[in-house]
């Protein structure tokens, strides 16, 4: 199934772009000055408040009027990635801020630099805290790759549509499409849950049955 591969490519590139942009955005929100924080807040508010389909249409049909033209695949990845970065920056920001101020002070008082404290103390904990909400976001991005359909990208859904027009078996085709999305989403969530479990440390993240 080539369509499934295109879907995976959209997913990985979109989510990856979200990570690459989301982390600096989270940093900017926490450590930036007023202007940077304000700009990021606007960016986030906008991307989180308009439907992804509208974002995709803006990128694909709107930007050419300003002389910026993307192939459908690139526009789809950009749309997925930009929107995801807005959500992911919230995830990373929350995870970093959830680590107590006194741990940072303790790290500095040992003679660590700010950068050392971030990499040795804050980041290892923030990653663990961010995994569950990140898994959630990953599932959303995967499913939303289907909106690339509207730009003419031949991903899983559109390919299914072609198969249906050839076979006239809509029920069978869309059940199969649904099943493929289902398997992909569940595998991603299971994989990340396994990572979470592997990194688990008592007292960090969501506890099971500890009072």
């Amino acid at each position, binding site marked *: 199934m080539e369509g499934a591969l295109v879907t995976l490519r959209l997913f990985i590139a979109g989510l990856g772009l979200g990570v690459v942009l989301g982390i600096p955005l989270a940093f900017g929100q926490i450590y930036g000055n007023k202007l940077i924080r304000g700009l990021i807040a606007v960016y986030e508010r906008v991307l989180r408040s308009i439907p992804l389909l509208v974002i995709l249409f803006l990128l694909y049909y709107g930007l050419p009027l300003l002389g910026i033209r993307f192939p459908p695949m690139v526009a789809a990845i950009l749309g997925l990635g930009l929107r995801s970065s807005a959500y992911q920056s919230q995830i990373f920001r929350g995870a970093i801020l959830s680590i107590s101020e006194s741990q940072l002070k303790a790290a500095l*008082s040992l*003679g*660590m630099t700010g950068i*050392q404290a971030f990499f040795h103390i804050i980041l290892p904990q923030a990653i663990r805290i961010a995994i569950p909400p990140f898994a959630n976001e990953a599932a959303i991005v995967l499913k939303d790759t289907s909106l690339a359909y509207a730009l003419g990208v031949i991903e899983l859904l559109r390919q299914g549509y072609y198969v249906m027009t050839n076979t006239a078996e809509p029920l069978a085709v869309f059940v199969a499409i649904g099943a493929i999305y289902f398997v992909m989403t569940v595998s991603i969530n299971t994989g990340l849950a396994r990572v979470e479990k592997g990194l688990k440390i008592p007292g960090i993240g969501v506890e099971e049955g500890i009072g």
Partner: protein
Amino acid sequence: MTEQMILRIEDLYKSFGDHEVLKGISLSLNKGETKVVVGPSGTGKSTMLNNINMLIPPDQGRIYLEDVDVTTTTDLTKIRQEIGFVFQDFGLFDHLTARDNVMIGLTRVKKMAGKEAAELAMLELRRVGLEKHAGQYPAELSGGQKQRVGIARALAMQPKLILFDEPTSALDPELIGEVLTVMKNLARDGMTMLIVSHEMGFARTVSDQIIFMENGVIVEQGSPEQLFNNPQQERTREFLFKLTDLYGEGGG
């Protein structure tokens, strides 16, 4: 005996916005001395400790660690390695075991080899009576145990001085004793310590000097006998007796 000065603070001022927290604090600490700072909350005791290792830089004044001016040093991380800090809420690294909490400053800051650092960490944990808990995470330790790990972490860096910021204030009453015992042993071993605490019994029996601070100034400082039996300021007498009533002589 020649007395070697470890810490000298001269005329420290600090404001937060319009609120002037420290209004000219001066004090000094010789090698091996234990001084306990007491005073009502909000008088700047904690701010003063945070000034000393520049976690909160003062607005004015000088702080010398031996002969280095901490307020103008270009190598702050070096100075901080030499000043231990024990926090009211422990400040343990939640993702590290007790042993790794003690080790991380050695390996990451002092660049000590892992094996050597692990041995030293175990030695310090033994010193605070926690070698059996070395593999446990902070979430698995009691408050008193956490604070003892905090003390071991400070000790492992082999500091010239340890600052304690209300080390027992966040603890349940029955856990205070174990932490004070560790601190008492350190005082006996000749560690230089500046301690902000409300534990009057401890202050009275362990400290070389008690410093009474109120409203950003040092009202009076002197030996425990002098402050308890013959305070020069009426305010000192009132405060010490009120605190002793409140907290008792416990931990002495």
